[in-house]
């Protein structure tokens, strides 16, 4: 009985091996390309060979063929060997356009500090820096600068109190970015009460 199982499993392994070996060169190139693409770090030919169960040499040949393909294609991307691994990157000549893109990137993305500060401003506006500090318990200067740069908040005049601190409120850009018609559209705690108490 045991023997039979062993033979069976050996057979299965064999089939799996055979399956592996029958990948065409094009298939190896495709899977190598996908793995290089999803990897956060440059990935080595050895690492790829271990995952897909092909010889390191076969994988290396596939990567080199892929690199030639990228070079001949003259597209927007290049496959390059770097730090002992392989990586897909944009072609150097295109850096100007890419830099331009990075500058115009949508600005709805926020760090947690900026999001917290924005939340306080949105729900407590008009509000001063000391008042934000009082609620958040943390200095918010750099978060406020970021929010001003992203034009999500605007100054709302000085508060007529000691030191006449500047007051802040949300901007029109804020409404657009968060898909709100006006400030009354901001959900209140009551709106979610039923959801949260569940």
């Amino acid at each position, binding site marked *: 009985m045991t023997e039979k199982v062993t033979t069976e499993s050996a057979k299965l392994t064999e089939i799996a091996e055979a399956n592996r070996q029958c990948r065409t060169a094009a298939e190896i190139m495709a899977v190598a390309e996908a793995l290089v*693409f*999803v990897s956060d770090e440059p990935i080595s030919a050895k690492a790829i060979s271990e995952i897909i169960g092909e010889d390191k040499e076969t994988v290396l040949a596939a990567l080199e063929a892929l690199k030639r393909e990228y070079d001949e294609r003259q597209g927007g991307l290049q496959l390059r060997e770097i730090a002992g691994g392989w990586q897909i990157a944009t072609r150097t000549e295109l850096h100007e356009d890419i830099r331009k893109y990075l500058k115009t990137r949508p600005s*709805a993305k926020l*760090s947690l500090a900026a999001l917290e500060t924005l939340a306080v401003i949105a729900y407590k506006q008009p509000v001063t820096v000391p008042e934000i500090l*009082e609620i958040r318990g943390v200095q918010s200067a750099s978060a406020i600068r970021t929010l001003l740069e992203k034009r999500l908040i605007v100054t709302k005049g000085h508060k007529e109190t000691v030191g006449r601190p500047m007051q802040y409120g949300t901007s029109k850009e804020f409404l657009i970015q968060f898909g709100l018609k006006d400030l009354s559209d901001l959900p209140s705690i009551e709106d979610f009460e039923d959801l949260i108490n569940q």
Partner: protein
Amino acid sequence: MESSAEQFAFDFTSETAEIIPGERDELRIRLGQFAGPLDLLLYLIKQEQANIFDIPIAKITDEYLKYIRIMKRLDVSVAADFLVMAATLIEIKSKMLLPRDSSAEPETAVDDPRKELVDQLLEYEKFKSAAQMLYERSTIEKAVFRRGRIETDDANAEINATVFDLLTVFQKILLRHKKQVKMEIEREEVSLAEMIDRIQSKLSALQELNLIDFFSELNTRRELVTAFIAVLEIVRTQDLRLIQKQTFGDIYLRRV
């Protein structure tokens, strides 16, 4: 009837709802948790292989109530919506038993007490199929991967916030703030008189008191301020002096 119900071999409490792509174009749900009363009702109708346009209401009502009883017995909390449906079914069942007005045109759908429920079931079933479609789409989508991180992502390693995030973050801040205020109120209990007492008791034990050491024992700004005022008050009203042994050296409070 009752006893046969108890012979079910499944465990309601451990089973969780799970979508299993069925052999037919429908969702098959493992027993235990139905997405709602309509879901349970559809299941029972299919079990009975009944026509949705001609539901055997007495039979289905019995089955429905049986399931509710099992769920209750097994301590599965039965949502109010399930009970509402039970009431609706009983109501329809009783209406069906009433003698029909013979003068009215027979077989008119409008008179059928089941009509509203059938419409509701048909409407619901569309969305149930849509849910199945969404499930299939997301399964396919999970086989597709996006690129790994690249250098330029770092400058944008931030979250894409929604209005819901704004509100939940704001609530968290308020909660944090409440705790802080509470702590401060507790701390505030050290009064000026108490602080003076504290300094004097320390002085009575020692010849002199190193103020830097004493201040560093204090935890909050408020305590520090109170201690500072207490020292000034003691020096003003009692025979005590502040002494600095060398320039920029530690300051001592000493009895004259």
